[in-house]
């Protein structure tokens, strides 16, 4: 049973990461590739705070707020950049964060990582075993998903979609598009930070190697497979990953070929989905009006 809880908890974390990324990438059209950096910052912040005596609730909140603040900072400096540039600036930001995590020995112990991260303890209840931790994660995920649902389905969410479709038009309708973009990006970072905190206390050992760029590809696969710009997309994406790919682990193939094979299938499906079904499984993300994008294409 524990293995089920273990996988289910991982599923919740992937869902949080995919939906939070979907909020700014799929709904608002902000092509930022630093989601893993927010996840890592959240994990380290939460682990370090709890290991230095802070109560879990405080550490959990800080794990969300810190990346959110950084995202606002990053956003302010580069929001006016065109999509390609923003993609690279945020990739650069992610590399900077990874380099700092590896080099700031006094704080993060560099590559030695942080071991023995205590299990969360809220109001005296410690969520030590797999089942209780899963219920905690599932609870938090449900709450965050509900809030994100309300955000995306409200007039606020509708404005985000207009910004994605045609920012210039949205501006001429009196929408402060920069403020909306920063908010969407900030919320995405906040939720990624929460997921990071849960991950740290779940695996109880984190090192810079767990927050590298190719983890980003997995989340991109989930979001795109499920359907960018749709609320149900990430749910379908995570389901596809867990139902279709996880069992591959039980294939009789020698393990050394199984790992790369799974990754290979992920990337193949990712490319094929974008090529033939850009709107993904449950998606309606269509390649919106070209004018909306920064470059006028023929």
């Amino acid at each position, binding site marked *: 049973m524990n293995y089920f809880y273990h996988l289910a908890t991982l599923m919740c974390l992937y869902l949080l990461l995919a939906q939070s990324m979907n909020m700014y990438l799929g709904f608002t*059209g902000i*092509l930022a*590739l630093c989601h893993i950096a927010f996840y890592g910052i959240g994990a380290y912040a939460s682990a370090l705070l709890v290991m230095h005596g802070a109560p879990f609730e405080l550490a959990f909140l800080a794990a969300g707020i810190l990346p959110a603040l950084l995202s606002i900072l990053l956003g302010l*400096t*580069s929001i006016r*950049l*065109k*999509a*390609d*540039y923003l*993609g*690279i*600036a945020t*990739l*650069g*930001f992610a*590399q*900077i964060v990874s*380099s*700092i995590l*590896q*080099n700031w020995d006094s704080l993060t112990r560099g590559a030695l990582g942080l071991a023995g991260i205590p299990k969360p303890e809220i109001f005296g209840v410690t969520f030590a075993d797999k089942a209780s931790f899963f219920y905690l994660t599932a609870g938090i995920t449900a709450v965050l998903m509900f809030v994100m649902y309300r955000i995306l389905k409200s007039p606020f969410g509708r404005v985000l979609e207009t910004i994605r479709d045609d920012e210039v038009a949205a501006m001429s309708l009196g929408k402060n598009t920069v403020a909306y973009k920063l908010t969407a990006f900030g919320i995405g970072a906040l939720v990624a930070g929460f997921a990071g905190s849960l991950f740290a206390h779940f695996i109880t050992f984190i090192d810079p190697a767990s927050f590298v*760029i*190719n983890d980003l*590809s997995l989340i*991109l*696969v989930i979001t*795109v497979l499920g359907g960018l710009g749709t609320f149900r997309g990430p749910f379908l994406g995570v389901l596809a990953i867990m139902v279709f790919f996880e069992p591959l682990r039980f294939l009789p193939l020698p393990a*050394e*070929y199984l790992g*790369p*094979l799974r*990754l*290979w299938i*992920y*990337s*193949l499906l*990712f*490319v094929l989905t*974008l*090529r033939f079904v*850009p709107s993904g499984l449950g998606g309606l993300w269509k*390649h*919106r009006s*070209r004018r*909306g*994008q*920064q*470059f*006028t*294409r*023929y």
Partner: protein
Amino acid sequence: MDILPQLLINGLISGSTIALIAVGLSLIFGVLKFMNFAHGEIAMLGAYFYYYFFITLGWPVLPSMAITVALCAFVGFLFNRFIFWPLRKESQWTLLIVSVGVGMLIKNSVQLVASGSTRTYSQANEPSVVHHFFGDALIITSNQILIIVSAFVLMLGLFFFLKYSKLGKSIRALSDNMSLAGVVGIDIRRSVDWIFVLSSAIAGFAGILIAYEESLTPNMGQHLSILAFVAVILGGLGSIPGALVGGLLIGLLQDVGTGLTIGGYSIPSSYKSLIAFSVLILFLLFRPRGLFGISLEEDKSQKE
């Protein structure tokens, strides 16, 4: 500062290989207006193809290089013809995200076949020919000279090709305004195919040079792509000399930046990538069009 000459050469060596990849990136951007995240992986592919032919099969240098460059060009062509070209009408988002997927596909394919562990070209105890200049202050091997020279030769060749050859002119027309180019009878599809063949071939060759100087691992493609992006943005989008200068600048910044000890304090070398990316962020904020590129606003407004 006796180690400065050595640092400069180190910077030149790593810079020229980055420049080779940046050139291809800049060419592809010039036409399809998107940053190809898979381009660095083509260089990694080149390193592994060369390893297979030169080390595993033991072919001599030149045939191995030729077949490697050809294969890389073919892979670039295939991905363009089946993935990038059909999606050219999409927003450049979709192209960007799909190029991340293509990059993953290449990396995982190599990892699947070559079972992931890192390798190196080092032959049994074959010491490279070493040349000493200015006493011992500057030491450079013949391989390293080959890298710098071939980078410049390729750059010059590409520059003249674009300036004078018929195909070169059509490629430049394409990057200025694709629909216009189509109207005046340039076969757009063939030109774009040629661009991918050309840039993938150069990237494949860059992969060989890199693997000669350093080790090769399936993950190196990603790192190369990102460094090449920085070079392209520093140098200015769509400009070939820009990509060269940007690549060299990155190499020098990283090596001299971490090498110099000013007043007893020096940046630890593990912060190397930190320097490159901080410069990237600075350029993106204050001079997004880089040193030689045309600013996007002007480019767009003229077309509006």
